[in-house]
Structures are given as C-alpha cells and as structure tokens.
C-alpha cells in the first residue's frame, strides 16, 4: 500500500487539476505533457508554464510523437532545470530516460515524474489519417476492461512493462472501471509526498490492482509470443535477414528517434562507414554484385549490438519506418534475449549499471573457448 491522492473527478480532469494546482502554487515552474496543438487534434509534447495553456493538455492521449525520455534528456543533460518541472510520461519513455541517465545524458534533479499504467499508443500514422479520435472511446473502453486495445502499435500489443518504474507519482488506468468518476494518484516516494503535502483532496492508502494487472500481463505475453513467432519464422538465417531488411531505404529514421541512440555523430553516419569508390571496387571483385547503398544488414546488426542491451521496446523505430520493417519487434525480441543473459531490465533500477559497463570476475565461462 502506498499513500495516494484521491480526487472526485474523472482521471483526465483530475490530473489536469493536479497539474494546475502545482503550477498556480508555483511549486513547479513548468509541465511537460502532450498537448493538442490545433483543432485537428494533432498533439505534440510541450513544456507549459502558463496555466491557460493547460486547457488543451492531454496527458494520457494514446500517441507518442517522440520518446519523451529523449526530450527529458535534452533538457537535463547539463544538470536539472533551475526550477522544478513536472513531466507526464509513459512507462517506456521513463525507462528510456533512465537508460540515458545511466549514460550521463540527463538527471532527475528538479524533475518530478508522473507516469501511469499504460494501455499502449496508436501508430503515428493514425494521427496523420485523423482516425485517432474515432478510436478513442473504444481505446478507453478496453483500458477500463484491462484488454488489449485494437489498432495499437505492435510493440505496445506485446509490451509487458506497462507499470512504471522510478516515477514519483503513478496513475492507475488499466482495469479501473471508475476512470470517469474518480482519479487516484499514487504517491511513490518522499519527494512526491513533499510536493503534495499542502494539496486539497482526500489522502488514503491505495495500491495497484496486482491481480488485474497480472491477468493483463498474461494477455500481453500471449500476444508477444505470437509476434515473436512471426519474426522467428521470417528470420532463420542470413537470407531471412536480407529478406526482412532488404527493403530498408537507409533513411536512419529508426536511429534518430531511438531514445537509446544518443551519439551526436552516429558511427553509421560518420565518414568511417562511408563507402568509398575503392570499397565498391574491392567488394565487386569478391562478390557477384553489390546492393547500393550498401551496408543495410550491417547497419541494423550494428545498431542491435550497440543498443540491444538497453532497448526499452518503445516501438518508435517501427512507427517512423517508411517501408514498414517490423523493426521494433525484432529489436524487442533480440534485446530481451540479450538482457536475459545479464538478468537486466532496462530502465528498471537506476542504481544498476548497464551490463556492458560492468563485469563479474567469474562469469559467462560458456562463452569462452
């Protein structure tokens, strides 16, 4: 059981009032949240400092235009903001942020985090096609019933890490029939308690509904296994790899949106990876031909080896892929298998080192000669 703030209004309104209160009492200077930017229901992340701007904020909107973990990192990599900021982010975004903090690309100073049990998000394409609003009612219905919503992204369908780690506040959404009537904001730590101590509203002891969430996790697990099986059938050997990645146009969009890929100059965009005329010549001598631009499989395998250990399976890579390569599921699958070797869940524990940056003296003997 943890302390919780109970407000007698819908969860959507409750969280807005909660944020509004913090802003008005100047306990925080700004709020990072999703916000509608026009009448067409397009949404974008914004840092809001003016209470008026909060009216169009939609913290739980099922879209992920960018990974907020990456945004928070850009905002805090030189140290926290001068005055407190509170951010409403999805669990995978928060995990991405924690992975970035481990890489010294951000910090939690002067930052409060609200997260929630997440029912997944729609592909960004649906926002382009203006079909999000149509599907919203159905989406929230299935969240209330703790079922997997239709039309959400594949990475979300198979996501088992929908309960946030490391957040100061957690809003429980999944399986709550009373979403329209009351909002329950769980206060996870001292930092959160300090922030809310003067707030009006009822405080009581609450906890996440473990049983319901476990059932939901089982549903997701079944879905995940299905998705993994499809990948297994597609990629069995090098030919399978070529088949799946063959249509990649090399836009490197997946790398640009990835929360873990933080390098200012990516290896694959540096002159080191550039194919020089002499490289073409030598390749053409060896093989019966060469794909141009070359290095597609190399790029994806390379990125897997670089970020697989920390992949939080947020699914953005697949979302931005213009040729619909099932890249998020491939990365999720391979990433999880690598993470399992080191018994590591990315973004779970901020004090735990990234497995590749630490070691035990006696381990992994089966991988040696």
């Amino acid at each position, binding site marked *: 059981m943890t302390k919780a703030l109970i407000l007698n209004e819908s969860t959507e309104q409750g969280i807005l009032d909660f944020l509004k209160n913090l802003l008005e009492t100047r306990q925080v200077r700004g709020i990072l949240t999703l916000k509608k930017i026009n009448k067409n229901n397009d949404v974008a992340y914004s840092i809001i400092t003016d209470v008026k701007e909060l009216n169009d904020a939609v913290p739980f909107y099922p879209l992920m235009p960018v990974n907020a973990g990456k945004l928070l990192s850009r905002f805090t990599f030189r140290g926290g903001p001068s005055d407190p900021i509170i951010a409403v982010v999805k669990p995978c975004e928060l995990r991405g942020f924690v992975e970035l903090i481990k890489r010294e690309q951000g910090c939690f100073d002067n930052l409060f985090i609200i997260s929630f049990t997440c029912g997944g998000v729609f592909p960004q394409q649906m926002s382009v096609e203006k079909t999000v609003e149509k599907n919203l009612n159905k989406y929230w219905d299935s969240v209330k019933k703790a079922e997997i919503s239709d039309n959400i992204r594949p990475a979300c369908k198979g996501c088992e890490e929908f309960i946030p780690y490391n957040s100061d506040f957690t809003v429980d959404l999944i399986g709550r029939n009373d979403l329209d009537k009351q909002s329950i904001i769980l206060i996870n730590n001292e930092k959160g308690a300090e922030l809310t101590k003067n707030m009006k509203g009822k405080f009581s002891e609450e906890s996440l509904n473990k049983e319901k969430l476990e059932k939901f996790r089982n549903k997701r697990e079944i879905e995940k296994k299905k998705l993994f099986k499809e990948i297994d059938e597609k990629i069995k050997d090098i*030919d399978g*790899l070529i088949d799946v990645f063959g249509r990649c146009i090399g836009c490197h969009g997946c790398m640009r949106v990835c929360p873990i890929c933080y390098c200012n100059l990516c290896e694959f965009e540096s002159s080191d990876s550039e194919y020089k005329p002499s490289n073409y010549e030598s390749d053409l001598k060896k093989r019966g031909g060469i794909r141009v631009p070359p290095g597609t499989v190399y790029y994806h395998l390379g990125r897997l080896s670089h970020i697989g250990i920390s992949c939080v399976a947020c699914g953005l890579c697949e979302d931005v892929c213009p040729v619909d390569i099932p890249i998020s599921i491939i990365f999720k699958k391979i990433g999880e298998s690598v993470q399992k070797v080191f018994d590591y869940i990315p973004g779970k524990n901020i004090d735990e080192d990234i497995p590749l940056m630490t070691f035990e003296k006696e381990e992994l003997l089966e991988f040696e000669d």
Partner: protein
Amino acid sequence: MNKEDDSMPKILAFLCNWCSYAGADLAGTSRIKYPPSIMPLRVMCSSRVDPLFIIKAYLGGADGVLVAGCHPGDCHYEKGNYYTRRRFAMLKKIFDELGLESDRLLLSWVSASEGHKYANVARDFTEKIKKSGKNPAKKKIFL
C-alpha cells in the same frame, strides 16, 4: 598462403598486443606449425574490438572471427578483457537469435608464453570452420 587453395578457410583474428599477439609471435619463433588460415590483426586490447568489427568481418565474408586476449585477471589494462567477455556473450546471443552461425565466432585467452596454446586454438578453430564450410554471407549481394 596458396591463393588457389579454396579449402582453407579465412579466419580474422583480433589479437591483443600484450598477450595473444606475443603468444602468436612465440608460436612463430618456436616454429610450431599451425594452419595458414589465420589473418592476425593487432589491437591494443581485446576490449578495443567493437562488436561492429566482428559483424563487419562476418558480413564481409570471413569464415571465422577469433578474438584473443590476456587471461582474465591478467589484462594489461586490468579489466579490459572482462568487458570483452560480456560484449562477446552479447554478440553471440544476437547471432544465435537471428539464426546466424555463432560457431564462427570464438573468444579465447592466450598469454604471451602460450605459443603452443595459440597454435592449438588456431588448429582446432580451423578444423571446426572447415566442417561448417564457407561463410554463406560471402557471396550475398544484398547485404
């Protein structure tokens, strides 16, 4: 190496400067025979080997990739080879999961005094690679 000899696999070997490269040198100066399949590439430490190097070698058509360094605990830089081991384990797992032949990758510890061990590793690995045949990536165009 006889260029016509197609049966001899090509194995790229990343040898650490302080142990394995000296070990290979010792094998040579001691006139220990081992197959001419190994193409040594000296690195300052086995942990200098980015997984990308191995991937590039594999996709470029190397039949095998050997990474050799000092024995755990003996690293010239104290802990480099411990990191290597973790990275190597990760890469092997990735290869396994994608159905690529992770048997073509080998991590071995060879010290500067182990000329015999180096020759043995070279011999055994070459035999193993010979059995698995040519690297299927060698002739692929659409990589």
